[in-house]
């Protein structure tokens, strides 16, 4: 202590700083520091730009005779434009959207009550959980031959495949949401004299519903990923069918346009679910600031 005090005594006493104070460098890669909204948006755009650049470069580096196997981003956009304006592509897109939504909401209509009952009643859970857990390991695509035999090359077959693709995971996720409901909320309702039905529907479901909505949002993304599988086999319409036809004629630009479409639709679905969640659960909005 003494030594330190003596050292200080040697220092010149100034009322002003001799040089402007240097802030420690604020570099981007500090641990656990959030980035500003604008910075995040900029970085996101940069990511896209980098991807497009690599793609474009790849296109240029490809020998001219095989460039049609790796069309440039612009060629894909053009192909998309031609599809929409000349080939009635929007009709296919609409059919695919309808397939996704019908099969997905059918899956939700089954899995939400099922998972709710499994989460609330241990015997139901014990009865169904081993079966459903096992079913998750069955690849949806392996059902295609079976569904073709049962339903033929119909819409029902495609809807059934999309349904089977998400239902088991949906049950598992929603069961988890139901079981994560704070135990004290249920006990509080019990001490107030709530009956079983009032607790299952009025407390557990209400409390779990924002999380269930998130699970649905995540699983519909998986639904989109099954779309092409569902529409590859014996389909005349839909985005997947368009892509398969293009594949037969080695039209890579159209295949890529299809991939792009599914990507865009996926993002839009995600936004749709987020918006729905925001407006359906005003009580669950994160307070800003």
């Amino acid at each position, binding site marked *: 202590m003494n030594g330190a005090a003596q050292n200080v005594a040697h220092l010149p006493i100034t009322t002003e700083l001799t040089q402007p104070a240097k802030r420690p460098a604020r570099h981007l890669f500090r641990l656990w520091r959030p980035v500003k909204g604008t910075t995040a948006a900029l970085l996101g755009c940069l990511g896209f730009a980098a991807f497009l650049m690599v793609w474009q470069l790849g296109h240029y580096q490809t020998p001219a005779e095989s460039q049609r196997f790796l069309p440039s981003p612009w060629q894909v956009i053009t192909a998309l434009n031609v599809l929409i304006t000349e080939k009635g592509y929007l009709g296919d897109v609409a059919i695919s959207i309808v397939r996704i939504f019908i099969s997905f909401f059918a899956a939700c209509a089954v899995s939400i009550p099922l998972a709710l009952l499994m989460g609330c009643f241990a015997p139901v859970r014990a009865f169904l959980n081993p079966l459903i857990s096992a079913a998750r390991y069955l690849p949806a695509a392996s059902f295609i031959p079976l569904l073709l035999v049962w339903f033929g090359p119909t819409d029902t077959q495609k809807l059934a495949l999309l349904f089977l693709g998400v239902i088991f995971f949906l049950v598992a996720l929603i069961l988890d949401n139901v079981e994560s409901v704070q135990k004290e909320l249920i*006990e*509080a309702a*019990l*001490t*107030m*004299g709530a009956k079983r039905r*009032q607790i299952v529907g009025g407390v557990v479901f209400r409390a779990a519903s924002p999380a269930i909505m998130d699970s649905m949002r995540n699983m519909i993304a998986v639904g989109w990923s099954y779309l092409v599988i569902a529409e590859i086999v014996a389909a005349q319409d839909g985005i997947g069918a368009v892509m398969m036809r293009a594949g037969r004629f080695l039209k890579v630009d159209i295949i890529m346009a299809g991939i792009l479409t599914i990507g865009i639709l996926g993002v839009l679905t995600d936004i749709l679910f987020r918006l729905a969640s925001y407006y359906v659960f005003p*009580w669950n909005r994160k*307070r800003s600031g």
Partner: protein
Amino acid sequence: MSAMARASSSALARSERTEVPVIETAGVTKQYNAGKFTAVDDISLVFPKGQVTAFVGPSGCGKTTMLRMIAGLEDPTSGMISAYGAAVTGPGPDRGMIFQAYTSFPWLTARQNVEYGMKLLGVPESERRERALKLLDEVHLRDFTNSYPSELSGGMKQRVAIARTLAQNPGVLLMDEPFGALDAQVRWEMQEMMIGIFEQEQKTVIAVTHDIQEAIYLADRIVFFTRNPGRIKKDIPLDFKKGKRFARKEDMLLLPGYVETERQLFAWMREEIKKQ
């Protein structure tokens, strides 16, 4: 606020209390792991109407288990619990419970939360609304009737839960570390608020707490638990308060006997900790 002012050290309220047992436990035992662990061992207690009892003791002494069994949320392994002369077989609105965790329903506004319990009891809507607003006023949430719990602080969420419990007008209030998650300042504000509510509503109260000063301030009687197995070490009336309840916590501190009581409880707590 007026309710709290009225409540200030009125000895009268105490003398009116009759000694009718509201809750009775007889030889209550709770074991876990097929009898390997005894959380609560042969506890017999009587809780007269209007008395505020604090369960105090070291962690793991079974005081919360005891409270949960009285609430009907857990069943005793053996022994009997009765409320108003009838055996307790499950939870019910005659025994309102306030939890340490925030249990105000996040999807309901403060007012809707308070109305929830009344709705279960079939109270008509206009009466529900009127009583909810009155209770929210009583817990100082008049300006937050239409706020969701996510917009409220921890203390405010807890006050919503308290108002919701009171709305059912239960004869018994069971509190499991109700202010344990709150910071010190909010904690004593809530304690003073509860004193006003105890006085006004003539509740029979059982409160579990770790906080020795809170126990002395709120309770008329302290049941001190010992650990492994959970038994009663001491069951003492807080006679030094002469039946008074204090609207301001600091008014209790200079009372003869206060310091001795607090020291005694600390000494018991230390004994229990040493045993572990």
